[in-house]
């Protein structure tokens, strides 16, 4: 990573860390983990299942909210407040700015996930008094969650590069929801014939496949995650987010900063 991208990424991370809203979201996530403990205690025999399910779902939802909330403002806020002018009047290329912002937000989400994950593990430890054998599975699920954040971030960045922050938030959240139903969409596309089928297939493959990245239920039931899936999912998330960020760069390169 070139040094300018690293400096922009670090500054983005620093902004997020100093943003109080972020702390509130983390507090909410911890509260939800607390709720998981409570529910786990009244779910006799399935405490582990409930805690893992609730905890990881909370991590996903709050992470996605943070990714969308910060992601849509990454570039648009800088244009609106004109902070971008003094950055781009320096030897900083526009693509470096966009990529730096993306890495900064990704780093923020990784750190947040780390804190939220600690909450989940503490809840688990409290309820079942041991981490093994679920720990590896949970870590894999957390890794997939981070991959989801990567895609959500890149989509928020892409949409915010040509629409208002509000619309960008709506588009990104809508894609997150649709992406979680992508397996159903692919199933639907397989049974529809003709042009409708083609369109359904195109849409099914165009939307991010968040279903494949969601192994929470599997992990909660103690089932192992195939190593092949880890490789495929990693490649898929990297490729998808790289394409979305490239799209954002292409749009931003041509944009007049009025």
């Amino acid at each position, binding site marked *: 990573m070139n*040094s*300018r991208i690293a*400096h*922009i990424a670090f*500054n983005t991370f*620093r*902004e997020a860390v*100093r*943003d109080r809203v972020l702390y509130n979201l983390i507090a909410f996530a911890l509260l939800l983990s607390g709720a998981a403990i409570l529910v786990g205690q009244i779910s006799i025999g399935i405490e582990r299942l409930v805690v893992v399910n609730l905890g990881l779902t909370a991590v996903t939802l709050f992470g996605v909210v943070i990714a969308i909330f910060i992601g849509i403002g990454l570039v648009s806020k800088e244009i609106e*407040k*004109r*902070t971008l*002018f*003094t*950055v*781009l*009047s*320096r*030897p*900083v*290329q526009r693509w470096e700015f966009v990529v730096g912002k993306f890495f900064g937000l990704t780093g923020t989400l990784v750190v947040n996930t780390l804190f939220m994950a600690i909450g989940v593990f503490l809840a688990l430890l409290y309820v079942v008094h041991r981490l093994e054998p679920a720990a590896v599975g949970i870590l894999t699920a957390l890794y997939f969650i981070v991959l989801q954040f990567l895609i959500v971030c890149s989509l928020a960045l892409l949409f915010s590069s040509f629409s208002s922050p509000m619309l960008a938030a709506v588009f990104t959240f809508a894609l997150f929801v649709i992406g979680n139903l992508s397996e159903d969409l692919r199933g639907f596309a397989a049974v529809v014939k003709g042009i409708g089928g083609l369109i359904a297939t195109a849409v099914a493959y165009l939307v991010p496949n968040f279903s494949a990245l969601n192994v929470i239920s599997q992990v909660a039931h103690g089932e192992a995650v195939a190593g092949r899936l880890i490789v495929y999912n990693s490649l898929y998330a990297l490729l998808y987010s790289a394409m979305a960020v490239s799209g954002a760069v292409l749009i931003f390169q*041509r944009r*007049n*900063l*009025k």
Partner: protein
Amino acid sequence: MVAIETTNLEKVYAIGFWRKKTRTALRPLNLTVEIGEVFGFLGPNGAGKTTTLKLLMGLVFPTAGTARILGMEIDDPVVKAQIGFLPEQPYFYDYLTAKELLEYYAQLSGVPPKERSGRVEKMLGRVGLRDAGRVQLRKFSKGMLQRVGLAQAILHDPKLVFLDEPMSGLDPTGRREVRELIQQLQHEGRTVFFSTHILSDAEALCDRVAVIHQGELRGVGAVADLTSQVHGKVEIIFAGRTVPSGLASFGGQTHVSGDVVSAVLSEEHQDTALEILRRERCRLISLTPVRRSLEEYYVQKLQPTDVGKGVGA
């Protein structure tokens, strides 16, 4: 090599939902700024000053024409390392302290790590913010933000500094300090290009000025030349409480203030007027040709032309 050179630089925005209407922000601009000059870009609000600066900074793209800075294309990273820019009413990352902000900009400008800290401290001192270096920018007043803006513009030792309304939001002391800073920059051999609509600042600081109005360049000239032009009138100031009748008959403007009388007369009446004063035993204090002020030049250049429709920014 010149500092700035624009050739038919033009900006037209497409507006409306279908982007079919247009708004001309800048008509073809041909301008040259020499190295080492302090150049004032004058014009009322919405004249096209900021659009021109944004075009030169690569923040907006020209519809037509070209611009070169220090002999290079404006999007060349080598150029960007040699210019400083203060936007109009600057807003900075308010979660950072002044020191952190300047360090960040020093990093982006490629200032070597060993020099960063010293350079930041020096700049904070130069703009009078040495004691406020560890204060978050959200607690800064408008004037303090303007000073931080100036510091970031010159932090990396640029050859050419662009300042968009640098006196905006400053109190009289702050304005004087900025004027001194611009003079220092000139003495250091830097080129300064600044936009303003405060003519006294331009007259005091600039070697040359350009007047822009409704997106159109209306005139360029050296301040010394513009203000040395005489009107064919003279101002006579003499001691007295009344205007001698002979003098009043010339029909010029007269003004009595206490024991001093001033009269602005046509140059052709100068000798006769002096003769009258000698005869009336009035003590002559001064006689000076009336020079054209920058304000008169500016106002003259803002007179309507037939191309001013549909322009803004």
